[in-house]
């Protein structure tokens, strides 16, 4: 990951701040980030940090705690695309980022986003509004799932069951959306400020 040593130092400081000067972070440590509470999919984001698939430690399951290297591994999914990268590298980068998002949806790690999992995500995103009943959230999820199915499989027979969105289908849905240019966190270009007193 081409991040400068300055940036790594800052991320390390941030890591220490989150972990309370311990060598590893646990799920509870993310409670100390108040802005994160505003996020409706907070639970999924925190879970993504401990997901063994994202940490490249296994096909499923959650880690108990993560070290600084693991922290950097997760952060690397959000690195910006380098202009010096060739097409193959960009494609690889894109796949990695999309895989990260796929893992967010596919919570039971079976390689498919089922209707239940889809509904779960929509409900979380909409759960803050007291005026939306669970039924509406459900119907929204169902409608969206059907659209996704039509993109992936085309016209379905009336009794054909759609098992779920696989990663290949997922990639198909995201075709045309330049996710790799949007899914990144940019470091500030630091300039020294004149020392005035």
């Amino acid at each position, binding site marked *: 990951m081409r991040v400068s040593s300055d940036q790594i130092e800052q991320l390390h400081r*941030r890591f220490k701040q989150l972990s309370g000067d311990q060598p590893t972070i646990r799920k509870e440590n993310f409670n100390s980030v*108040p*802005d994160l509470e505003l996020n409706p999919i907070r639970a999924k984001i925190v879970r993504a940090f401990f997901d063994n698939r994202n940490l490249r430690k296994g096909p499923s399951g959650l880690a108990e705690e993560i070290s600084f290297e693991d922290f950097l591994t997760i952060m690397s999914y959000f690195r910006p695309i380098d202009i010096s990268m060739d097409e193959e590298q960009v494609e690889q980068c894109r796949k990695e980022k999309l895989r990260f998002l796929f893992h967010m949806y596919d919570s039971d790690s079976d390689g498919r986003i089922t209707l239940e999992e889809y509904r779960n*995500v929509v409900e979380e*995103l909409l759960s803050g509004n007291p005026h939306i009943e669970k039924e509406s959230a459900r119907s929204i999820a169902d409608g969206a799932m059907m659209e996704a199915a039509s993109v992936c499989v085309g016209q379905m027979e009336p009794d054909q069951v759609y098992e779920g969105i696989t990663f290949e289908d997922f990639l198909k849905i995201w075709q*045309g959306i330049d996710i790799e240019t949007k899914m990144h966190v940019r470091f500030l270009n630091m300039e*020294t400020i004149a020392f005035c007193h």
Partner: protein
Amino acid sequence: MFLLLPFDSLIVNLLGISLTVLFTLLLVFIIVPAIFGVSFGIRKLYMKTLLKIFAWATLRMERGAKEKNHQLYKPYTNGIIAKDPTSLEEEIKEIRRSGSSKALDNTPEFELSDIFYFCRKGMETIMDDEVTKRFSAEELESWNLLSRTNYNFQYISLRLTVLWGLGVLIRYCFLLPLRIALAFTGISLLVVGTTMVGYLPSGRFKEFLSKHVHLMCYRICVRALTAIITYHDRKNRPRNGGLCVANHTSPIDVIILASDGYYAMVGQVHGGLLGVIQRAMVKACPHVWFERSEVKDRHLVAKRLTEHVQDKSKLPILIFPEGTCINNTSVMMFKKGSFEIGATVYPVAIKYDPQFGDAFWNSSKYGMVTYLLRMMTSWAIVCSVWYLPPMTREADEDAVHFANRVKSAIARQGGLVDLLWDGGLKREKVKDTFKEEQQKLYSKMIVGNHEDRSRS
């Protein structure tokens, strides 16, 4: 058997006598002015000398760094990531639009891509957020010869090391014992003085004496910390029946404010030394001390404060509405309780100069005694106090709004960042209402579409 040189005992005696004389002279030079409230200007001179030394030290380090061709100053960081200012709606629409396979009039209600915005925002806040930064000590841009603040500076030559060593010697062997002696004197005088005044019958004489005993002891404590305070706008000082409100950085705030004015304190009854001081103080004049169980009862607290404030003969109350110590770069949310009782509020802004010693009390890192020792082994504590003009709650204003107004005034005067966040976040979690706002916004977007569809 050891050989004693014939004049050895003479030297020891001379040393002992000269040290005692020196100490007594110093005590006299410091305590006597404190009693009468005058100042010889010794501390200001001390401060100027220190500044010159720091400037010289910084120059040496710059030169040293230039010779080695390295960058000395760490880049000024106000955050490590660039946050996009686009709103929720714009960004989600943009992503949907770029998924060009769908016809534009057939806008779907929910897209797989919608999750992306929240995911990225979440990542950004994990990497860098506003609030947690406020709770660690402010980082300096020059070195003040204290090793505890030496975060970024490594280019220290021999001369600087010698200077630093000298500094350590002076601070720990000369200043520290002196300060401890002064603090001891101050506190014991306070306890003894207020107890004695307590035996007098109530009246003008008792009040006069009580005021001066309090002021004198606080002034001694100020000198015990070598606090160099500049007061601005003293004409706005709080009057009887008012409420004095200030931002909170450390327990020293109390000493700083109380050495310039006669206040009634509010607080919880403690055990130990602090409890002894509290009990003694309340004999001389009415302070408001709460038992631990009473603190939780907000109505009781409000009632007692209101009673105190309505009695015009009683002193102005000193209160810190943030509820906890903040690191003096910002002002956090003021708790509304003190603003509900309807008294005139006299806001006070306190800003410490971190160059001489960091006054912030990180209560999760240091205990009280460690903190006081750190304070007493710094060079000095330099701060500015601004007395702002009094404010009252307007007719149609609610307590929260009034509290925010006072807070903004204090933040603006002290040059601190005005934050909406609750200082209590240092220990607790965010209330659920904040999370709901964000979710409501997103769901309005989605359901808005849904309703249009079902209507047509």
